[in-house]
């Protein structure tokens, strides 16, 4: 599963055993399966609901012995306090800018390099590809000290640029695109374009990019999510221009923590990704099932 083929696994076709007797695994499962899945679904969503219940109540909701199930009426009051404590919209804007730029950069450079590794012949290709694969294991997290020194030296700390720079390219992106393009562009198509007199970049643009589009979409989704959820580096290098994650964590760093407001903030910060999930949840699922790697 390491290699990222993007096709969805073939859906099982019912196999007939004898006269009209379906193979047992193709039968619809019983209630037990749905019960288990439903329980898992409740476990998956209850913490979010819980944050809404707390985030819409006053502090005395905590004194009830049993888990509170119904929301209070103070959600917007608490949200207003979130807006008073941190500059939510600025943080949202910062997160949007940072994640979009990183996504654009990672996907463009990964497509270019992945295409070259998959379909072009050049000296040193094999060695360089092995290098890319070897660097997959290098966590950028561990380079934070010199990276921080570098940003300080350049006077870039506190800027959005400093947040973006460490993740403008990823080895995983290059590897992912290469794996996809190797199988999905026939060599004849590239040769035909060349024979027709297309330049190298023209061939890339008219043959490579259209073929790469599905993989680019999935890589974009995952890169965006990874950039959006990052906390350590943005918190370190630019706490003055907080991303949404940093702003959210600042809600909690006050000496007296009001959990109702923290919860309202947590929910507000989750809504953008929930919206993304509604729009692109299917692609996320198929991307993961195709072997996308944790960010």
């Amino acid at each position, binding site marked *: *599963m*390491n290699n990222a083929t993007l096709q969805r*696994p*073939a859906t099982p076709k019912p*196999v007939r055993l004898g006269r009209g007797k379906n193979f*047992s*695994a*193709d039968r619809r*499962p019983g209630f037990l*399966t*749905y019960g*288990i*899945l439903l329980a*898992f*679904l409740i*476990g*998956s*969503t209850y*913490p*979010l609901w819980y944050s809404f219940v707390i985030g819409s109540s006053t502090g005395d909701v*905590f*004194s009830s012995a049993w*888990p509170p199930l119904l929301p209070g009426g103070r959600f917007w009051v608490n949200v207003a306090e979130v807006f008073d404590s941190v500059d939510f919209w600025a943080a949202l804007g910062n997160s949007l800018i940072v994640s979009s730029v990183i996504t654009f950069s990672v996907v463009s*450079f990964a497509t*270019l*390099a992945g295409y070259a590794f998959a379909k*072009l*012949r050049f000296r040193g290709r094999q060695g*360089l590809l092995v290098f890319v694969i070897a660097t997959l294991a*290098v*966590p950028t997290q*561990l*380079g*934070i*000290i*010199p990276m921080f020194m*570098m940003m300080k030296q350049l006077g870039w700390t506190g800027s959005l640029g400093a947040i973006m720079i460490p*993740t*403008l*390219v990823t080895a995983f992106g*290059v590897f992912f695109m290469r794996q996809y393009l190797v199988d999905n562009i026939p060599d004849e198509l590239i040769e035909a374009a060349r024979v027709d007199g297309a330049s190298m970049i023209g061939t890339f643009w008219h043959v490579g990019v259209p073929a790469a589009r599905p993989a680019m979409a999935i890589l974009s989704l995952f890169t965006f999510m990874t950039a959006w959820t990052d*906390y*350590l580096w943005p918190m370190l290098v630019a706490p003055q221009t907080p991303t949404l*994650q940093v702003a*959210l964590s600042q809600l*909690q760093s006050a*000496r007296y923590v009001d*959990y109702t407001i*923290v919860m309202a903030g947590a929910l507000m910060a*989750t809504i953008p*990704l929930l919206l993304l*999930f509604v729009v692109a*949840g*299917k692609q*996320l*699922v198929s991307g*993961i*099932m195709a*072997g996308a790697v*944790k960010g």
Partner: protein
Amino acid sequence: MRRRHLRGRLDFKFSPYLYISPFFVLFALVGLFPLIYTFVVSINDWELLGGAGDWVGLDNYKAELASPLFWNSLLNTFSIFLLSAIPQLVVATFIAAMLDQNIRAKTFWRMSVLVPYVVTPVAVTLIFSTAFDEKYGLINNLLGALNLDTIAWKTDVFPSHMAIATMVNWRWTGYNALILLAAMQAVPRELHESAAIDGAGAIRRFFSITLPSIRPTMIFVIITATIGGLQIFTEPKLFNPSSSVPGGPDRQYQTTVLYLWDLAFNRGDFGRASAVAWMLFLIIIVIGVINFLISGTIASSSDKQKSRRFATRKGKK
């Protein structure tokens, strides 16, 4: 005409390098250089404010290897990792097996297990930190209502590890279930059919066919979980806001990356923090090499299965 030919040849020769160069240039700058420079910092007596001091060789490494705080952080990291990886894998495999059946509303169920994945770690930590609050948290309230002893989630070592592992599990179990589900769906149908004809029930088939077949994916999931688990930071950092020491008043759940961060940016000892970074990097490399070896042997043995999958796919088109 001739000039055009020349230009075409140059284009042909140099374009590939042009296409890969942005990646390599940027990666050298933000991936490779910091890594090497971390090593340079680690063999010097380097302070946040004072800058580069004397060359001290491996003294920083020796000091860290002798430091109980370093070992404490490593122990905490592995403890939290084990508490999250094992239940996560078991539950994910189970859920994947449930999803692998011919259920109705497939897409709905698949998407539903992924909901926690879109909640960012910061939000996850805040939500669970509230639920695990020692005085007023959901979980202790519930224990109290059931007349059980409440648990000191934020002060005792083992409970705090459990609480942090819970956050990790909540976010990642569904994700891993989907990866495992993909592997299960790639198991050749004929295997299940012949076993069914031979009279093997669903449970027998799960242990004798499904589990052995998804072993490579299982190993892949374990390795990625390990690498991710070794870098855990956000959850322990934000778990208890009232603690002045990151990772608990007595460092009960201070993980290695959190320790590194504290060493560098609170105490200003860049040299020793860099030594910690490099040791952690070496641990990750060792695990990466194991990954490479295992997946290498697996790749050769699973080629057959892959080509069969490819054939069926082609046949469908």
